[in-house]
């Protein structure tokens, strides 16, 4: 029994990071109606920028390095929109999709160009995990969980309790009508991109702390975020959150029943099944940021 509970625990922790990725992806989809393939690169950039501030010549402490890194990732996210997506928004949605794929390659190779394709780490010595009645959790895993809860709580409060949240939800509901009602579109779109970037960067930093950094780290995790978004119903923030957790738990529990070599199968199979039978997602209450 304790074996399954430990698997569940690992799943929740992995899932909370997937949720951080998925929320940003679904938010962008909810408002702009397109899937941003370069979302994965924001994850990578967040992690590498933190490494940059953490290592010489800066050598700042980790928490201090994470702040400018998240801010710079937000600048990247915002510039993506400002320079590329905004001019294309009136066109065909396929154009946006292809532009985002191109952008993802460009950003990924920029990481390679600057930091090389070698594996990098934050060089933390591995520490024995803390034991709670037979369950093992590392400090970084706890940090992952705490950070996910923290960011998602801020998001919850922001969306439900503030005027900004209301205007965001209105825009997701109907972009044109919201604009007619006097909601400032540039402000809403800027906040969506900043939010999505900061969440992706935070997830990327946590992932890098837990293991290591490499230029494809974002792209490989993006598929999990996709599955989470679909599971929750595209555009649904709370759905993406639950979707992320669900995937984390499903793939970790799956290890008990089949070879872990096929772990990714869970995420991919879920995408297929959902697209076939529940295209609006399992938790698809209705589309839109709810």
């Amino acid at each position, binding site marked *: 029994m304790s074996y399954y509970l430990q698997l569940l625990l690992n799943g929740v922790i992995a899932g909370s990071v997937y949720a951080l990725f998925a929320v940003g992806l679904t938010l962008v989809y909810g408002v702009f109606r397109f899937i941003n393939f370069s979302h994965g690169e924001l994850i990578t950039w967040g992690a590498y920028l933190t490494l940059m501030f953490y290592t010489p010549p800066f050598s700042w402490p980790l928490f201090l390095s994470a702040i400018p890194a998240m801010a710079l990732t937000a600048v990247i996210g915002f510039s993506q929109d400002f320079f590329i997506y905004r001019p294309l928004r009136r066109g065909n949605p396929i154009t946006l999709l292809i532009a985002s794929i191109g952008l993802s390659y460009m950003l990924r*190779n920029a990481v390679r160009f600057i930091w090389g*394709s070698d*594996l990098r780490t934050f060089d933390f010595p591995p*520490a024995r995990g803390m*034991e709670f009645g037979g369950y*093992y959790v590392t400090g970084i895993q706890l940090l992952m969980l705490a950070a996910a809860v923290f960011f998602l709580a801020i998001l919850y409060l922001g969306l439900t309790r503030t005027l900004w949240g209301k205007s965001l939800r209105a825009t997701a509901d109907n972009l044109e009508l919201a604009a007619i009602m006097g909601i400032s579109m540039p402000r809403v779109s800027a906040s969506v991109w900043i939010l999505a970037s900061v969440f992706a960067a935070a997830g990327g930093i946590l992932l890098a702390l837990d293991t290591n950094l490499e230029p*494809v*780290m974002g792209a490989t995790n993006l598929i999990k975020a996709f599955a989470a978004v679909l599971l929750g119903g595209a555009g649904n923030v709370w759905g993406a959150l639950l979707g992320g957790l669900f995937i984390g738990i499903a793939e970790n529990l799956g*290890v008990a029943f089949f070879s872990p070599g*096929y772990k990714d199968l869970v995420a991919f199979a879920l995408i297929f099944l959902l697209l076939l039978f529940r295209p609006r997602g399992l938790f698809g209450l209705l589309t839109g940021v709810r």
Partner: protein
Amino acid sequence: MKRWTGILACTWLLLSGLVSAAEVKVGSITPLSGKLSVYGEGFQQAMLLALEEVNAEGGIKGSPMRIVFEDNNSAAAGSVSAIQKLITIDKLPILFGPAASSNYLAVCPIAQQNKTILIAAESAAAEISKCGSYNFRVFPSDALQGIGVAELTHALKFDQVVLTYINNDWGVGLAEIFKKKFLESGGKILDDFAHDEGKTDYRSEVLRVRKSNPKAVVNLTYIKEGATILKQAYESDVKTQWLMGSASKSPKLIELAGEAAEGVIGTYPTFSQETPQYQAFKAAWEKKYPDKKIPVFGEYNYDMVKLTAKALRLAKSMSPEDLRQAMIEAGKGYAGVTGDKTFDANGDVGAVYGRWTVKQQAIQDYK
């Protein structure tokens, strides 16, 4: 306008043809991007070192030798497009194949079909021996290494182990040979499962190891995956003896896993570091790349280029058959940095296996 472009293109083609006629070109499919690029840069540097020496010795019958590098993004699909380009556009008769056996196996039928010589310097799958007559490799086959790991496990008196391996052609093939040999020698496998390539979270896999509470775990994997598994096992306090293969033997493993890599024991195809060939290679490497350590499989890549140059000098003509004969001829008794490179009927070479361990955060020979 169109006509001018046409004429320009023709002139360019003609000119580039003239320029390249003076060079002897061979191709290389190298993982310069993607997940194997950790290794790729090192392969390339070793090849370039050998190339520099070949050209300093007068090249191939007076013409300089050149390697055309094609990136494969560390993937089978990328390797196939790379080989297509090297064969059909560059028309190169000798190619250095991609690392990772799955990538190599994806391209070797294409080389065979086009009568193009394909040489492997770091692909170990036993399956590769069946690639065909135009296939050569300077790296020993896993058929030998699988037996090596089984013998190591047996010699250390671990008769019950958990086996885990990376889920690709190389890992699966190696695991099968290990299993066969280990079971034959009376060993028992408590649990065996594959793990995915390129993951950051192997905690569930580690839990599965912990479930059988084994004295030893045979983990046939790469550097990054190996380091992550070791680290996450250490975090959840799994106390066991880790036994690994040659692909994890790298200072990078220790850099990534730190303390958690301490005490790992593994096997690797070895060669004497006392030979004059090795000493010369080492000196040349340190001169060309003073602040870089000799990379994993660097010696094999170096040997591959040197041996190919020898074959090109021996070849009566550049026809596929003459080149193939020249390769076999060049290999006969060839004493490279990595030992004897005499090719058998499958284009394979023999091997000697050594044992490595991690002690005080450094890779050392296990005695």
